[in-house]
């Protein structure tokens, strides 16, 4: 009985604490998402108030839409070109920067810069760097190795990779920030223990550092993938999806269909809904993987408890 009242009191306490946050989330995220899910079944157009329920017509149209297919392929290419390189380079940079003893602050400052940069401002600058003229910075650089000037943002073959390069440039810095934090969290004692056991250099990286960073890696993999699936600014400022839709990502296609030209917000919502399903699947896969990584760490004893055991053994021998 006493427990019941205690639980009841907790319930009211929780409700009071959660209400402000849930008002915000319901009014500006959950509600609108549900509205979008409804609109996805209509022929709603932003230019007029009238709309009709069209059932699965939008879904059928989306599945057969060649432009959407192109946008999906572009987005997958973009992900492939950004996610793995940015996580890999971010990790390597963090590993290298962590060992720097002199000029530490300056090194970190330089590598933090891209993450804090304004993407619109950076896109403007990258537009000049990848200017089509032979005297543009990128063309001057490739000129040194004897490559003819490239119309970077105006060529179907290079537009998407260049946009991905700009996105990856920024993501790498973000990954670096998170990995650096992860590395600082590894206690010195774990390395000392590994040292006593004769585990050094690459072996230490493989058997100690990387396993301890596994949860960070899973988080970054999922988070960065979700971020890149929602790429908008770089495309909007650098190429506007062109040339000939060669750099149109899914989100940019949604923007194009819903907010420009025909203003078909109903159809745009259906595409957004499909994207949401894809993103949720990625998120769920990440959550499962994250759980498995944690469990595996406990079973293997690669974590702090295991390392502590190693220290104890080293002390005894």
């Amino acid at each position: 009985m006493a427990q019941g009242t205690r639980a009841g009191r907790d319930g009211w306490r929780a409700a009071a604490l959660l209400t402000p946050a849930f008002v915000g989330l319901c009014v500006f995220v959950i509600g609108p998402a549900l509205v979008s899910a409804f609109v996805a079944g209509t022929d709603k157009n932003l230019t007029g108030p009238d709309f009709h329920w069209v059932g699965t017509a939008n879904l059928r149209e989306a599945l057969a839409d060649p432009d959407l297919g192109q946008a999906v392929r572009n987005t997958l290419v973009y992900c492939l070109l950004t996610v793995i390189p940015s996580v890999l380079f971010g990790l390597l940079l963090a590993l290298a920067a962590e060992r720097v003893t002199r000029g530490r602050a300056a090194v970190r400052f330089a590598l933090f810069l891209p993450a804090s940069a304004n993407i619109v401002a950076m896109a403007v600058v990258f537009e000049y760097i990848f200017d089509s003229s032979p005297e543009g910075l990128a063309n001057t650089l490739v000129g040194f190795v004897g490559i003819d000037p490239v119309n970077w943002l105006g060529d179907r073959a290079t537009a998407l990779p260049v946009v991905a390069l700009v996105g990856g440039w920024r993501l790498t810095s973000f990954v670096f920030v998170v990995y650096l934090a992860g590395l600082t969290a590894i206690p010195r004692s774990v390395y000392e223990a590994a040292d006593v056991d004769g585990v050094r250099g690459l072996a230490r990286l493989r058997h100690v550092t990387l396993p301890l960073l596994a949860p960070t890696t899973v988080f970054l993999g999922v988070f960065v993938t979700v971020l890149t699936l929602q790429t908008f600014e770089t495309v909007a400022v650098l190429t506007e999806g062109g040339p000939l839709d060669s750099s149109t990502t899914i989100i940019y296609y949604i923007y194009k269909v819903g907010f420009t030209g025909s203003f078909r917000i109903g159809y745009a919502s259906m595409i957004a809904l499909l994207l949401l399903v894809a993103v949720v699947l990625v998120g769920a896969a990440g959550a499962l993987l994250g759980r498995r990584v944690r469990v595996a760490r406990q079973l293997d004893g690669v974590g702090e408890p295991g390392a502590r055991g190693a220290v104890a053994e080293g002390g005894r021998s």
Partner: protein
Amino acid sequence: MTSEAARPRHRAGAGQASGRAGGRGQTHGPKRPAGASRGAVPRWSSLSAVGRFGFLAVGITAALLPFLWMLRTALGPPQNALRLSANPIPSSVGFGAFENAWQAGDLGPALLTGIGVSLAVLALQLLTGIPAAYAFAWVPFRGRGPLFAVVLATLLVPPQVTAVPNYVTISALGFADTRVGLVLPFMTQAAAIFLLRQYMTTIPVSVLEAARMDGLGTLRTLRTVVVPLSMPAIATVSVFSFLLSFNEYLWPLLVARSPDIATPPLALAGLATRTSAFPDFTQLAAGSLIISLPTLVVFVVAQRRLTAGITGTGLAT
């Protein structure tokens, strides 16, 4: 999550164990210099040190290059802009472009709007996020898991999906084309709740029990115990929140119709389109640098706290 709660104590234990092993370790002579605590970590061979510094140098160059390019363009004469030409160092240096950009782009008011909006968003996110995070971390109530999952799921909703319904809501409330309209939709941020909650779970139970014994109510416990203990996480959330709102592009694009409430990215984009007939690249580069400054300053000032905050949130190790 209990494992995370237990971690700080755990780490302290590992530290003690290592102190002992470190002392003994030297007696049976691992090949490393004794002394300095950092020296306990084996140094990499000089070859890999060269590789490491080479890699760092490449990374730092890549991170800085666009900023240096911006600076060079902004400082040099217009005919030098965009083109690398014969001399990469501008033939003459002047600050005229900064003055032009400042005036032509109305950057002063835009910066004030940007900073004001970002701070207001941050205040609301902390006001809604801290109580919610506390409830999810420490108040046992029915449906806590599923509700927390709902909060996390909102992270996956692409902003483009909610843009149109939010625009309708903001207009209906009479906040279209106002600063309030720029702020409100971001009043609650699931990522902030998540990070704060992860950090709060590391507060020892005994501290909260003591607060309860002293007869502190929930709000006073929050204010006098939980918030001071959670400062690293609050700092991290603040930095990321400020960066995101200051750089937000899509929502201001939809809501801020009149130029006098333009945010910095909008002002910059306006500068780009207004000058497109005869683009003054020096002015655009100067504008890009000006609007990048506030976030750079925030990032640099906060970088140490940032690492500490990420470390405590359970994202790392």
